[in-house]
């Protein structure tokens, strides 16, 4: 953070109740993550005026994030005051509030089209006038909050820039009595306790970090007393605590949640001190092991120090150490990894295995949060396993790269962005750090707009080979500068396909398309970052001519009429219309 420089972004808070105190909690949480953000809170219950008055301070501040915190107790105040008056039509009340919210959201998005908007789910106090009547009679309050929350989810799925913060779940998790402080409500019109404000601030920042792709990617696990109770080398496979009863069930359920993370695209790996054959026997044959050998992308089961093993895992999985979380029951191992590899997140871990599952869910909510699942997420672990087989093949081809490429039998599906591929394209621009020439980050809405623009083209490439289907791994965004000149706004490859000449195929395909559009020159830039050195020589290697350097950025030019980028003949190109349509 530079002194005097304007903050990177402004977060605006609009609410039905007083959030002046919450601003402090949010500011503290942002500081914890070193986010350079300014917070602006409107007066409470002014959100309607703020939204419809184009000259309001809200718009003058140009916030990148708008938090619209409409509390259920305020939205449905009349119903809550007298819930017995007549037979309330719950669906109508929820629908009216949802329609009103949608109208306000539209007004906001019209004036701030690129802002990310956070909506909150609603909840009511668990005890109220209808307690007892609820479920026994037509009178109900819970139906109103449930229906309204369903509407909120629909709004989020309809508008890619709208996120939902599940404050109802957050309030239930810490308990309503801890969440709501009646003194603050009566004296200050604030519906949150101090504890609630902290939880809400942490949840808000976690949500925004997940939205920006700033989450961890890989969980590395110890075995003895972490995935099961006891030491397999001493107690034997029959003696370890892992099963369907007692504390053994705590380990089994902990594994269930790890498996769910894997299904959402988080990579699992093992780093443990055991005899490999003892550990593998448990992974392969223990009837209550939820996690099997092929759920792990990589294994380091040996007696070497764990920091060295973690470094190896990082290079084998091609992930930066700051993508890792390391879970180990041993304080000594945690201390070692923390001091040797400060980038790795090493959470304190409960002594009691009964708390493992909730500790993991707490951790995942902050560091491993997923807001969507792509096909790539679902298949990620099997792709890493296939990568292991590829490495074996490369080693056996004794340095003859061309024969290695041929033996991979690669097929690239290439095409323009469409509704099926836009989410993954946006995700790749958000997450790709290494093979990325300009590191420009785009949201789904940005990509959609670019793909519809008359002077831009968004291309993507999906790669499969004899071992696996990697899904979409390459993105190229082209902008027309003039009739004959096109500029490479973005060119990136997922790290898992680096070193397989895919860039030649993608740029080669793009050149063909541009030549069809009578383009003469293709301009590229390389913007160096701390992570993208691997792409530094890309344009030179593809045959572009240097145009000079300014402020570290090198500029390159390819005269399409004279030189073309050849698509390697070991990659089969499928650019049919159906190629990337599902």
């Amino acid at each position, binding site marked *: 953070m530079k002194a005097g420089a304007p903050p990177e972004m402004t977060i605006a808070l609009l609410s039905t109740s007083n959030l*002046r*105190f919450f601003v*402090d909690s949010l500011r503290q949480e942002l500081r914890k993550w070193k986010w350079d953000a300014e917070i602006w809170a409107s007066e409470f219950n002014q959100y309607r005026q703020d939204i419809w008055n184009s000259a309001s301070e809200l718009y003058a501040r140009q916030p990148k994030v708008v938090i619209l915190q409409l509390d259920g107790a305020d939205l449905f105040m009349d119903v809550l005051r007298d819930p017995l008056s007549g037979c309330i039509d719950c669906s109508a009340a929820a629908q009216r509030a949802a329609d009103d919210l949608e109208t306000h959201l539209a007004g906001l998005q019209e004036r701030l089209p690129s802002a990310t908007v956070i909506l909150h789910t609603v909840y009511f106090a668990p005890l109220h006038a209808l307690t007892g009547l609820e479920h026994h009679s037509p009178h109900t309050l819970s139906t109103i909050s449930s229906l309204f929350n369903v509407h909120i989810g629909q709004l989020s799925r309809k508008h890619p820039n709208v996120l939902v913060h599940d404050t109802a779940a957050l309030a239930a998790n810490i308990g309503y009595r801890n969440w709501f402080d*009646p*003194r*603050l409500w*009566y*004296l*200050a019109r*604030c519906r949150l306790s*101090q504890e609630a404000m902290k939880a809400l601030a942490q949840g808000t920042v976690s949500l925004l970090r997940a939205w920006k792709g700033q989450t961890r990617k890989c969980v590395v696990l110890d075995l003895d007393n972490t995935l099961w109770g006891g030491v397999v080398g001493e107690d034997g496979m029959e003696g370890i605590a892992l099963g369907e009863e007692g504390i053994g069930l705590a380990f089994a359920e902990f594994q269930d949640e790890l498996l769910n993370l894997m299904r959402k695209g988080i990579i699992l790996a093992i780093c443990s001190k055991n005899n490999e054959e003892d550990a593998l026997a448990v992974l392969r044959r223990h009837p209550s092991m939820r996690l099997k050998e092929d759920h792990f992308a990589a294994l380091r089961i040996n007696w070497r120090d764990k920091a060295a093993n973690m470094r190896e895992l990082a290079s084998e999985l091609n992930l930066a150490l700051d993508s890792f979380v390391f879970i180990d029951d041993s304080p000594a191992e945690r201390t070692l990894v923390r001091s040797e590899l400060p980038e790795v997140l090493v959470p304190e871990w409960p002594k009691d295995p009964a708390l493992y599952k909730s500790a993991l869910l707490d951790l995942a909510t902050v560091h491993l949060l997923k807001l969507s699942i792509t096909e790539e997420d679902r298949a990620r672990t099997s792709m890493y396993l296939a990568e292991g087989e590829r490495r074996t093949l490369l080693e056996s081809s004794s340095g003859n790269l061309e024969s290695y490429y041929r033996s991979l039998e690669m097929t690239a599906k290439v095409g323009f962005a469409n509704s099926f591929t836009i989410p993954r394209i946006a995700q790749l621009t958000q997450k790709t750090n290494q093979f990325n020439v300009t590191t420009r980050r785009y949201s789904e809405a940005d990509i959609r707009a670019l793909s519809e623009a008359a002077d831009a083209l968004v291309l993507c490439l999906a790669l499969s080979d004899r071992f696996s289907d990697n899904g979409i791994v390459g993105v190229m965004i082209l902008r027309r500068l003039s009739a004959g000149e096109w500029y490479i706004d973005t060119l990136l490859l997922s790290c898992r396909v680096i070193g397989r000449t895919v860039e030649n195929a993608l740029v080669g395909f793009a050149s063909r398309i541009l030549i069809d559009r009578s383009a003469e020159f293709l301009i590229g830039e390389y913007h160096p970052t701390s992570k993208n050195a691997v792409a530094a020589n890309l344009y030179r290697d593809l045959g572009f001519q240097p145009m000079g350097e300014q402020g570290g950025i090198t500029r390159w030019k390819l005269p399409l009429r004279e030189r073309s980028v050849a698509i390697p003949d070991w990659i089969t190109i499928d650019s049919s219309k159906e190629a990337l349509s599902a």
Partner: protein
Amino acid sequence: MLDQRVLTAIADVFGVAPDEVNLQSNPETIPDWDSVGHFKLILHLEEIFGIRFPADEIGRLTTAGKIQEALAGLGVLP
């Protein structure tokens, strides 16, 4: 004498030097001690001392001395 923890809390919440805080400190002598600041101070003290002030008392805690008396009444200060 003003209790050291109360003194530090007031200095921290309002960003004033500890030697400017005494038993007589009040919203007139400390610029940031407005209605929002008052709640920030109350919540901060509740966290430090692990107590809760009754709602009807919060508005009456208008000087550092009165806060000290209230904390004594709740049994967390002598």
